């Protein structure tokens, strides 16, 4: 083997090997809006979310429905991903969250239990 080739081969192998190794695990993931939804799987700072909306009018309509059906702590806030969420915050345990979700289903509302944004 030509001695001159070895150092260049080392550089080339690393230059190709590193990105190939990284990309073999998949292309880089650019954060999407769905990444703002962090579904709760155990106890913690949990929110019950009644929905996400692009338009404030739609969010306010859902808020009125939630308040009208007895979820007095409901409010609107930005979800950090350019949308507005209607939600109840301050739920400490998953059991309480599931109870709230069951009550919501009983009055025709769909709820997702999510961790509050840090």
């Amino acid at each position, binding site marked *: 083997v*030509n001695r001159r080739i070895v*150092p260049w081969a080392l550089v080339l192998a690393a230059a190709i090997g590193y990105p190939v190794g990284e990309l073999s695990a998949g292309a880089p993931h*650019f954060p999407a809006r769905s990444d703002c939804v962090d579904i709760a799987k155990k106890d913690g700072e949990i929110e019950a979310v009644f929905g996400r909306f692009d338009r404030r009018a739609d969010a306010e309509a859902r808020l009125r429905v939630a308040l009208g059906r007895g979820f007095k702590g409901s409010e609107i806030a930005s979800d950090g991903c350019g949308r507005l969420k209607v939600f109840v915050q301050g739920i400490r345990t998953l059991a309480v969250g599931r109870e709230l979700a069951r009550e919501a289903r009983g009055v025709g509302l769909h709820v997702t239990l999510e961790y509050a944004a840090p």
Partner: protein
Amino acid sequence: VTAYAIAGLVALNVLLLVVGASILYALRGWATWGELVCFSGVAYLLGVSATNVAWIFELVLGIAFGLATIIGTAAALVFVAFLVGYRAGHRLPRPRVPRGLPGLSLVSAVFATMTVVYLEAAFRAARLAGLYEFDAWAFWVPKAKAIYYFGGFDEQFFRELINQAYPPLVPVLEAAAFQFMGSPDVVTVHLQFWFLLVGFIVAVVGLLSGRVAPIFVWPSLLLMLVAPHVGGHFSQPTADFLLDELFAVAALLIALWLIDRQDWQLLAAGLLLVAVMLTKREGYAFAASAIVAALVVTTRDRRSAWPKLITVGLVAAAATVPWRILLAVRHLGGGGPEAGGTGLFSNLDRAWPSFRLALSTLFDYHLWLIVTPLAVVAIVAAFAAGARTLPLYTTLVYVFAVITFTYSTWAFPSLGISKEPALNPIVRLTGEVVLLTPALVPLLLARAWRKAPYVADDA
């Protein structure tokens, strides 16, 4: 969309490289195509400087900034540079198929491998970096967007922003990047700063290779790259790292001129210094520090050296006048210190804490690892080996840098005595010394190592 934007950025940077290569042809020419490859980093930074300075002149004159202006200006620069080079007697070498690979030592190969992997990882990080840095989203990128959308320095918009009087090179470069990307993509624009870092590394390696043993070049370069603050901030779309990259290469070219006395080195440094002064306000202090340091170390042959150094310094400073005139016409403040001049005396109690802050930041391991101690050791070693010119030049540049850092806190009483970026920009400022180190330290270490085969004798 991202692939299209990246392709656009590649095209822009190839354009900058072509302009820079033509300027290198005008300044010195090249004997072989391999020599051009070796100097491609310097050529790229010369291209960044020349095109951006020309674009700034055009914007000051009110010429609309668009793709036609960008490409037309670059084409004009290439044409003029080749004409100048041809008139100067430079000729392009004949293209030849290389007989084999150029020599690469094992030391170079190992460190080049680590550097390449670092840069690939840095590319991945920069490709998806968000616009989080306060200065970036508060005024650097908004200025670039304004140039992109309005085709110029919109008077009302610039007046509404903070730091209106900051030099415009970075917003102009970012606006050119937006044009080539097809949209003001504030995520992909981070990659432009990756290209600049690559250009800086290739420039330093190219200027030092064949002159300094690889063992002195690569470790200090890699040490700088892995410093926590470099890795975390080089791709931010702000002016700090570009300022340091341009200045470090300019200071290296002046150091090489002190050894070789080849005029092209000083002329290239002068062009880079214009860009330095049009990148950030402290660029004036940085440029003056390199010129004054060179004046001091050339006292013995001042008759031949001083006229050249002073001319380069004055012409470089004069090239920033159009921008200063625009600021004056629009009654925008020049961005001077809050307590400059006699104001320093009424804030004397800040002098010592400012000095201590500058030094402690430079030597902060958690920011810059051991880059500054390495520079100190290299200077001492070079002096101990009997060298005078290079270590004295480097010492003076570093001392002037510390004075500048101290002044930057002392003369702005609203800044806290703190390394907290929200309170004081001292960490960003000290990047000057850190990026200077891989440029100047290899020369000093080579001089100190008496058996080094490539040592330039500057004693």
